[in-house]
């Protein structure tokens, strides 16, 4: 009895519908000791899930994506698609495991001193760049000086702004001094933007955008814009024997229906961008494995805090209460998403606050009451402007419009083409209500919340400014102890439910499909594909 129950527990954990804490609680209920359960958990975290058999060398992995990368130089790769390429060609000091826990990669080991102000990394020996040069501490210093340079144009400058200096202790030891304690620093070190670049080559004029060279598991071969990016296996990768596949090819397919057809017909054998509407088809296909994983792709609604009537928190709360998130999940995501009923930080993350502000089906009566209470007896007219080519947002639009109408908020729906949307709606905050979604690449609570809730951030276009909130966010980011940060993020999320500056909607699951011949692939919560190097293809 226990074994199959345990197996189903493991299954639901793997599919992400069960958080780690939940898993531990259930395992205890089954009479398994906490220690045994935790060891089970960690073994599952790193070792192959099912008995996958002996790894096999060879084969070509063809993965389908819907967007073009915007460059292969870590310092100038602003889009997610660039990161997915960068992480195959370069390596980082730390790396994230499927559950987004950082573990040492290029760094053999690391010490934290001065109360979290100094990080010293000892580098692995014998690591070579693709052109044969040895990796040394000088490369690490060069990389981070390059990121911290004033006009580097690095989109994730916030991650490196607390670094005071990077010093080479010896060819295989590098020391980072920080201006203030930075909680998520180790996770920042695992971010593709922090990939270590070859100092000698870059200084001699190599344009990494056109010809990336790193220490990663795959060597860059070619890039045909809007068609394909080709990699080949890095024979002297520092993890012996890996990667197992001979070559990898990223196929860019802009039309989502064509993407699914490509997977179904075998033109490609992997994709983590299956559109929700086609996931059932992939699942039903006999020679394809279909996985779901709750990551951090959350969709949120932005009421313009600087405009009537959305400057009133009651109205913003009414908007949140009016929404039927179950309908959003069913209608726009075909059941493949988790309604966000409280704070924005997802369940699987240690920063999660298990407190419900609104029931999944919403509370229209309370919402209309709030609207009346806020001084609009028979509701009000407003507009909702959406970016036209994000399928999930376009799908949710009509449902949100219908829900709001029930609470007396009559929103007229307008859409706009992406480039014009960024220009005339997003960056100028010219909207009453809009919607957006975001795949947080870091899986550190700070990354989920600061961008949206902190005053003046690029993504805080709803113009929400609260000194209390900013204080909590900065404190949470700069304290070193995990529980201290967790307590601060709990207070922060409670405040967010009162102020409701943005209305979190749903967290869309990562939908992955691949040929059953692909063994030992562990999906990552951040949507990255670093773990492809551990997978192999059976003949």
């Amino acid at each position: 009895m226990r074994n199959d129950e345990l197996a189903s527990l493991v299954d639901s954990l793997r599919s992400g519908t069960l958080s780690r804490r939940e898993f531990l609680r259930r395992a205890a209920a089954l009479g398994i000791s906490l220690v045994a359960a935790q060891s089970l958990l960690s073994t599952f975290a790193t070792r192959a899930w099912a008995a996958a058999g002996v790894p096999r060398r060879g084969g070509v992995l063809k993965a389908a994506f819907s967007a073009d990368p915007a460059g292969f130089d870590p310092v100038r790769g602003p889009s997610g698609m660039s990161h997915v390429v960068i992480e195959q060609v370069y390596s980082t000091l730390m790396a994230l495991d499927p559950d987004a826990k950082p573990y040492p990669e290029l760094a053999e080991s690391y010490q934290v001193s001065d109360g979290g102000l100094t990080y010293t990394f000892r580098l692995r020996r014998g690591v070579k760049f693709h052109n044969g040069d040895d990796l040394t501490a000088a490369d690490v210093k060069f990389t981070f000086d390059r990121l911290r340079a004033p006009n580097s144009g690095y989109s994730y400058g916030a991650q490196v702004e607390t670094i005071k200096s990077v010093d080479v202790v010896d060819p295989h030891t590098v020391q980072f001094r920080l201006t203030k304690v930075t909680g998520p620093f180790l996770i920042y070190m695992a971010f593709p933007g922090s990939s270590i670049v070859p100092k000698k080559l870059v200084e001699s004029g190599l344009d990494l955008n056109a010809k990336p060279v790193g220490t990663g598991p795959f060597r860059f071969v070619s890039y045909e814009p809007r068609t394909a990016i080709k990699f080949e296996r890095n024979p002297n990768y520092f993890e012996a024997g890996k990667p197992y596949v001979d070559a990898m090819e990223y196929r860019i397919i802009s039309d989502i229906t064509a993407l699914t057809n490509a997977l179904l017909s075998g033109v490609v054998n992997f994709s983590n961008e299956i559109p929700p509407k086609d996931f059932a088809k992939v699942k039903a296909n006999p020679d394809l494995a279909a996985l779901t994983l709750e990551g951090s792709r959350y969709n949120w609604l932005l009421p313009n805090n600087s405009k009537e009537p959305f400057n009133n928190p009651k109205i913003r709360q009414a908007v949140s209460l009016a929404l039927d998130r179950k309908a959003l999940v069913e209608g726009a995501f075909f059941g493949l998403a988790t309604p966000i009923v409280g704070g924005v930080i997802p369940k699987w993350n240690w920063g999660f606050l298990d407190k419900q502000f609104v029931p999944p089906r919403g509370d229209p009566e309370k919402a209309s009451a709030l609207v009346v209470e806020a001084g609009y007896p028979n509701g009000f007219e407003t507009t909702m402007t959406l970016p036209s080519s994000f399928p999930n947002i376009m799908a949710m639009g009509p449902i949100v419009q219908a829900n709001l109408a029930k609470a007396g908020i009559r929103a007229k729906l307008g859409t706009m083409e992406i480039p014009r949307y960024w220009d005339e709606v997003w960056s100028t905050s010219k909207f009453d209500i809009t919607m957006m979604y975001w795949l947080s690449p870091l899986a550190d609570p700070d990354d989920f919340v600061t961008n949206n809730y902190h005053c003046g951030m690029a993504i805080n276009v709803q113009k929400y400014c609260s000194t209390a909130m900013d204080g909590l966010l900065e404190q949470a980011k700069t304290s070193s102890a995990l529980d201290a940060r967790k307590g601060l993020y709990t207070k922060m999320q409670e405040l967010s439910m009162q102020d409701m500056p943005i209305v979190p909607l749903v967290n869309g699951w990562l939908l992955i499909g691949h040929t059953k011949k692909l063994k030992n692939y562990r999906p990552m919560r951040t949507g990255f594909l670093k773990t492809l190097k551990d997978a192999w293809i059976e003949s």
Partner: protein
Amino acid sequence: MSVQLAQRERHWVGRSAVHWRRFRLLLIGGCLVGLVVLSAIFADVISPYSPYDIDVAIKLQPPNRAHWLGTDEFGRDVLSRVIHAARISVKVAAVAVSVGLIGGGVIGIAAGYFGGPVDMVLMRFMELLFSFPAILLAIVLMAVLGTSILNAMTAIGIIFIPGFSRLARAATQDVLRQQYIEAAHTIGMSDVRILTREILPNIITPLFVEAMAAFAYAVLLESSLSFLGLGAQPPEPSWGNMLNTGRGFMDQAPWLGVVPGMAMLIGVLGFNLLGDGLRDVFDPRLREAA
């Protein structure tokens, strides 16, 4: 005289086949167009549900008694949406064709009537516009004007201008060639009067016939624009964007694509047949052939 090439049977043919065939074209075309235009005008009255009501619980239902043509991915009634879509598709097509007709007509008449350098310049510009593939032109125009139904209409209209201008120019030149225009000149009729009283009435018919065919093509073009996300924006239903979403559910819910496809077929077929029927009626040469 059109000569029948081979005289097979020598039996007696009843009423002239030609007469009936032309009338039948007009009849079928007229009915189909009528169906589309009426459903566009009385959309609110005749559609069983509102095209916007969402009920996720009953999404992707095949045609059943409650929803004669099934429901779409949001549980909206497909029949009501296809009826309301007629309103948009007909509006887009109507405005687009009139933009093409008026724009093309004016340019064509001017080029045909004044001739010489005016004709050369206008026709050169028309050739330029003509050589640019229609949809690319529409995409560029939509990008310039922004995505909205009104812009889709103007973009499609502009695409028709070269075609209409060529027709108008040829028709004007035909009318000019007939002597009585010189007679009109001699009795001192001003250019404008000649244009309105002599030329216009004679070229209206071929332009109108061409308009019918253009109408059909406009509906098609709107659907292609919707495919590229540039046509009518959700939640507004148009045959184009319904067809586009239907494409994604082709095997799970085929009716999502088939229904708007059929509606479009009726519209396009109707206008084409009407156009053909009118062409036979108005084209003197064909009438002689009877």
